[in-house]
Each structure stands twice: as structure tokens, then as C-alpha cells.
């Protein structure tokens, strides 16, 4: 056990962790930030995606100790008070979520995609970039629409 300090959503947070503790366990169990989900054990589903030092990472595949001193942004840190982030708002308007379990990871991964591609984003790029985030409910149709809309690319359909 050791005490670890990670900046999460702008605040320095500390918790006692074992060396084997995963970043997602630190977030969920250490800090009670249960918006980040665990949907698999092989880094396939992407439900645990968070932003770490500006990059989307699957927090089930990062040891908490590797994130020491890092800046981590989770789904809980996206909205501005009651005002949703444009991506959160687009997901809702386009009905890009049903059960909502994959949604936090999908939104955090999309945030990264939009930041990297900006106005160049198109449907094919969205599909290519989000290939590592699984959703079982939506058939992805409305997710692609929401991401393009949030990126300012309008709606393709």
C-alpha cells in the first residue's frame, strides 16, 4: 500500500493503493467516481476511457501508480455545473445512448477524437477512431451523428 496523488478533474486527490491497483479502481473505489465503468477485462470495450494528460486512455489498462502526478479527466468533470458539455448534450439530443453504460467511455473517447481532428472530422473517421469503444444498444448510428454534431460538422443523416 502506498499513498498516491493524482489530479482528477482539476483537484488533487489522494488514496491508498496497492501496486496492482488499476487507475479505474482508484477512480471508482478509491475516489467513488463511479461514472467510469468496467465492461471487460481485456481492454476491448472502452467503457473505462478517461483523459490522462490530454490523451484518451483505457483506465483498466493503466496502473494507478503510473498516473501519479498526472492530470486525469473523467466524465464527472465534463459538465459545467448543470450545463452539459456540448458532447454530452449532443449525445442526449441525438439519442446516442440507451442503457448508458458505455456512454461515459464513449464520450471521453469522442472528446479526444474531436480535439485531434476538429473541423476535419467525418463519419468514416469517427467510426475508425471509436472502434475501441463498444456499445450494445444503439447500433452506433446515433453515436456517429452526435459526435459529428458536437464537432460542428452537422448531422450526416
Amino acid at each position, binding site marked *: 500500500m502506498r499513498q498516491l496523488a493524482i489530479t482528477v478533474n482539476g483537484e488533487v486527490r489522494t488514496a491508498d493503493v496497492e501496486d496492482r491497483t488499476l487507475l479505474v479502481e482508484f477512480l471508482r473505489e478509491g475516489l467513488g467516481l463511479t461514472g467510469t465503468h468496467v465492461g471487460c*477485462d*481485456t481492454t*476491448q470495450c472502452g467503457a473505462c476511457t478517461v483523459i490522462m494528460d490530454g490523451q484518451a486512455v483505457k483506465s483498466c489498462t493503466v496502473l494507478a501508480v503510473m498516473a501519479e502526478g498526472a492530470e486525469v479527466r473523467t466524465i*464527472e468533470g*465534463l459538465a459545467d455545473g448543470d450545463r452539459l458539455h456540448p458532447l454530452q448534450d449532443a449525445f442526449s439530443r441525438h439519442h446516442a445512448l*440507451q442503457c448508458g*453504460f458505455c456512454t461515459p467511455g464513449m464520450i471521453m473517447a469522442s472528446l479526444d477524437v474531436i480535439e485531434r481532428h476538429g473541423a476535419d472530422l467525418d463519419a468514416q473517421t469517427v467510426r475508425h477512431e471509436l472502434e475501441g469503444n463498444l456499445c450494445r444498444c444503439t447500433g452506433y448510428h446515433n453515436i456517429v451523428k452526435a459526435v459529428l454534431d458536437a464537432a460542428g460538422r452537422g448531422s450526416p443523416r
Partner: protein
Amino acid sequence: MTAQRQAPLPDGWAYDASTVDAGVLNAELFSEIGKPLRRREDHRLVTGKGRFSDDFSIEGQLFAAMVRSPYAHARIGAIDKAEAEALPGVVAVLTGQDALDDGLTAINHSPVPSTRFDVRLTAPDGSPPFIGPHLLLPVDKARHVGEAVAIVVAESRAAALDAAEMVDVAWEELPHVIDSLDAIKEDAPTLWDEVPGNTFVDCEHGNPEATKAAFEEAATVVRAKLHINRVTAVTMEPRAALADYDAETGRSTLYAGSGGAVRQKRELSAVLGIPQDDLRVLSYDVGGNFGARNRVYVEFGLVLWASRRLQRPVKYTASRSEAFLTDYQGRDLHTEVALALDADGKFLAMTADNVSNVGARCVSLSPLSKGAGLITGSYHIPVAHLRTRAVFTNTMCTQAYRSSGRPEVTYAIERLVDLAAIETGIDPIELRRRNLLAPQDLPYRNAVGSLYDSGEYEANMDRAMALFEWDDVGRRRADAKARGKILGVGLANYVESSIGTPKERAEITVAPDGAVEVVIGTQPSGQGHETSFGQVVADMLQIPAADVTIVLGDTDRVSVGGGSHSGRSMRHAGTVMVMASADLLRVARDLAAERLDLAPDALDYADGTFTARGTNRSVTLADLSSEQNPLSVARTNEMHAPVFPNGTAICEVEIDPVTCQIAITRYASVDDVGRCINPLIVHGQSHGGIAQGVGQAMWEDCAIDPESGQPLAGSLMDYGLPRIDTMPFFDVEISEVLSPTNPLGIKAGGEGGTTPALATVTLAVLDALRPLGVTDIAMPITPQRIWQALDTAAATPKEKAPA
């Protein structure tokens, strides 16, 4: 039984305004129903504030891990717990014998569908079938890989998992059987001594003599042997449960997402042998269901039992590997079908021999039963003969999975129709047109007894073809060819049944501030009940949808309720909410009349307010409610009549003949869902339904090695889920032919996306590959399967290939 056009609806089927006490609904007054309202659920879910089962934790909780069978079939000898118990942090290791000693009993899944209109399924001798008792932990033998035989409880999850590996079970491996067609062979290993030969359901339906006669005089007969492969739901949220025991009150609380908390409470309290009131089940946000969560899981009972024994909270969360091994799975039907046609291409008769693989014990016969009632699909087939069998094998149990039973039989009939088109030389669309039921044929009793309520089947097909730009397929085909790709199109018509648990209850309360609360017993897992149910109650009470809050998933609030399955929720909840709303307005009218000192019929009601006719004196619903005397009604309804959603879907694929990769380039569908309450939600349901059907057709497969009995798809790396880069955009439209069976005219939405998709994908691939000599291909249609099919076709002399 013979098919019957314009069959009368039986007593109690047709919506009767007088028995429902709701009057005839005036659709012109609807202002919220039919609107694509954004969901009320979304805010918490997009901000990370959802309440999924594993999100709950209680101070001092323990963690459970399971000791699972590594064998498909093995006798359980001595279980040595000593080494596991000695590990630090381990609190208890419990076995099936401990559970028996504590008086725990088997889960009563009641797997035989029992509404008045389900196809009856019995044992070969006509008696109720033996289903294989489902103890939380078996004591005699393990009957499938992954079956839990002991539970370890420890201070941490890691400690529990470490200890589970140290539990030493003296296994005696037994011969196993995986495939149902192997299990019915004479020398097959027997799973249950009570059912030698493994076949525990064997029934016949329809009219064997008339069918035989029709086949004898047929101009054309086509046959097919098909396997609708085993798949699994892969809910993105693995199942999880947290049990808490309050020694002072003797009550347990279970935080566990499911398909309906009321059922969980009823069946789990029975397993534990405690009064129902001593168990509270909470099912808040549920990360996908698709049928897999409808039945009770042993782990839910185990954490409850352990927490009562140890007097501490106990939590269990399945890993994805455990989910692949032990989530209730779906499909796995062998069907042998034949269709007889006359010289004009009119269908004369059909036979089907359906064998369902239920796994190691029977938790649900819904797939077999549902499919049995729909073998003739959307077509007029005067007579049919059907045999239905259900068989035990050494595999995980199967259960209703997204559109239980219907994709299987839709796949079968549409494959047959396609074969018939080839055999007779009649254009496949024209052949369908000649045999589709016409609107005036409905209500229609099909040859196995199902009574279709309403629909415009041919109009669905025409509309879907227009949406798909069917007339342009030739050009697209040539265009694909120019790019070195082979294009194929596949069309399937479907009709399905939505039945479901018949009972539902609604409690509606108006608070003094005007807020309306509705308690209902369905259980959404993404279908947006909090939004769409609000739309219904809002219109019934003529108030804004934003004023209505829906309460679900807490058995301390919800006393009766059938949960969500079989597309039942909107129809059953909608109906009982209409009835309860009418009750509420009646009670309120009397109160308002008293308040205004007038006769009840001297009042007009509009927009939440009673007004004395011709005056400006009025009282609102809120005025009639107080903290001491809230304005409140409760209504329970039992409704057996099924409904028959229907539609047409069309898939276009492009195949790369070099790599054998398949890309779906276009997918269109028209779904008759009856009245659509919220089109945004219904379209979303269709999209997801299509993806699940396409997934089964193209990638998904619970592959099991027949030699060892070992499941080969144990993670998302070896089970092919639809991904965002393998799915197209969909062109889906809704048709609203109202059902005559319920006040809102609702059928069901969502499952209609899945039902025809197995057929559309397969037919599209066959359409593409037929010129190359490929006439059959099994699901999932992977590039390897295409390569093999092309290879086999190339090696087959041309003259032997069918014309």
C-alpha cells in the same frame, strides 16, 4: 388446424372501452404522444451519475468469487476448502451442501410459457416437462463448464479470487454432449437421470394429415436444414449484485440490476425460504438486458445467503469472462423445414422440426414456444405440421434473447421462400407478393394457431423497397463490380409476437404541488420508460410530460409488475396507465364536484383543471391533493392478448472476392410497431435491434469445442461484437397500423430490428455469391466461411450446381 382469414378475435381480445373504463381515446388530444422527446434519463447517464449495480458499495462489504467447473460434465467429489480458508482475508467458503443444510431450495424459473395464447409445450407423454432443478450450487455434478460449485467470500475481491483458485474439488469427469442433435442420439450421455435421452419436451402442432396431402400434390417442394447458432447478450454492464442484511429487522436488501425486480424478489425469497417482505430488491440503471437478465442468477441468491450467514454486506461482480461463460445465452435452434407450392407459386403447406438446445437445465422455453407460433411467417400457408423438441446438453442455459424465438423461424421461412424462388424461377419479390397476407385477411389465424391482429404486410415491403432504392440495385451492382466487389441484396418480411407476463400495475399520485408520480413494474435497461411512460400519462391527464415522474425498480415501491421482456412494456404499462389515469380523473371529478358544489357532469376537464361549465370557477388536480390526502389511484390489469409487430428489412452487402471481407453498405427497414409513443426512442431501438441481428449473422458465435466441451469465445477478443466501424447508417421508418387489442393500439418496437436481420444478411450474401455457385452458407458468415464456400463451389462441377 387450418389457417383462417378474417378470424374473429376471441373474447377479451378486442379493446373494449367499457371493460377498461377508459372510454375511447381521442388521438386528436394527444400532444406528447408521438413526439421525439429527448430522454429524461440522459442527464444522469451522460454526467456519470447513473446508478448501476456495481456502483453501490456499503461500508464493511465483503467480496464473493465463484469456484467454477472446468469440465462440461463431471461428478462433484469431496471439496477441500482448507487451503482456501487459510488464506488471509478469507471469511467463508460455502458449497452446495452448506446451502442444502441451510434449507435453500432450487430457483423456480417457471420456464413454460403460460399465458392463454402461448404455444403449449409438454413432455413427450403430455405431462408438464421436467426442467432440471436449478440449485444455487449443485451437489451431485456440474453440467456445464463454468457452473459455480462453491462461493468464496473474502475481505477483498483479489483475496476472494485468489482463494477460489485454492478450493480443491475432487472431480470425476463424465462424458458430455454439446449439440442438441447429438444429445438426442441413442448413445448420448444423459444429463438428468429423470430424462434418459435428454429430450424433455416433444410436441406436435398443426395438421399432419392435411399437410402430408398437400405435399403429395405439390408442384414444387423445397427443404432446408438450418442451425441458428448460439449467441450471447453481451450486456455492456456485467451482472453484479450487492446484498445487505439488517439483523435488527431481519430484512435483506439486494442491489442488482435485472429485467424486473418483482420477479427477483419473489423467486429469491422463495429460494432463501424467507417471507417476500423480508427482501427488498433495487434495480436502478441496468446496463443492457436483451433477455439475459430476466431470470434469476445463482450469484444473486448466493450473495444474499452469504450476507445473511455472515451478517455483513457481500458483493459480487462478474468479470467479462464469467459473463461469457455463465450469462444466460440465446438461440441455438436446429430446424428442418419444408415448403410445398402449387404450379402458380402459391404456398400450400409447410413442415418444421424444431429442436431447441436449452443447455444444462431449462430456465425458459420462451424461444421454442414463440418461434413455434410463427413458423409460417408473414405468408398465407393453409396448413402446417410442426414438431417441437427441447433438449438438455452440457452447455450454459439458453433463455429468451433479443426477440426470443422469432429471428430463428423468420430465418427459416425466408430462406425457404428464397429457395422456392430459385426452384420455381419466380422472382423472389413476386413470389412473396403472391403469398403475403393482405390487410383484409387480418385478423388471421395461422396454420399453427397464432392469431395475427393487424398489419399491412405488402405495404411494408413496398415502402422498405422504396427506402432502399431497390430499383437502383442494378446500377449499384455494376458500380460495385467496377470496383472489384460483389454486391448482393437480401429482403425479409417478418411478423412476430409480443406476449409477455400478463399482469401489470400502475399507481398514480398527484402531489399538492401538481407533480405526478407513476409507480410501475416494468424494468427498462435503456428503453427510456421514464420518458415515454411520462408522455402517455401526460396526455391522459392533459398535463405537460415534464410534470410526470416514473418510479421503477424498487420492490418497496413496486408491488406488482412483470418487468420488461417480449416487447411487453409499452403495451402493458401503457394500457394500465391509461386505465389508472381514467380512474384518477373519475375520482378527481367527484372531488372537484364536491369542492365546487356541483354535479360531476357539470364540470369540464382540460389541461389538468376542472371548470364549472360556463363559469370561471375551477379547481386543478393539484388543488384536490393534500399531504394528508394525496390524490392517488392504483390499478392492476391482466391482459393476455398478444400483438403481432411486423415489417420488412433489406440488407445490401459488398463482398471482396479476394479477402472475402463483407461490408454492409445499406440497410433499410419498415417496422409496424402499432402506435409509436416516442419515435426518437423507437428508432434507437430499431437500430440496436438491427445491429444485434446483423451481429449474429456475421460475427457472433458462442463456439464450443465439441471434444472438450470448452467454450472458445471467452472474451471480447474472440467473440465478434458489432463495432462502430463495421456498422452502416440505417434507413429505418415506422409504420403505425394500430392493434385492435389495447387502448393505445400499441404493438411493440425494437425486437423487429433483430427478427429479420439474420435472414436479410444471409440472403444478401447468397445473392452475391450465387453466380459463383454458392447455394448455402451457415451463420456467422465470416470471411473464412465465404472463402470455404467459394472454394467448395469452385471444386463442384458446374452441371451439378442448381440452375
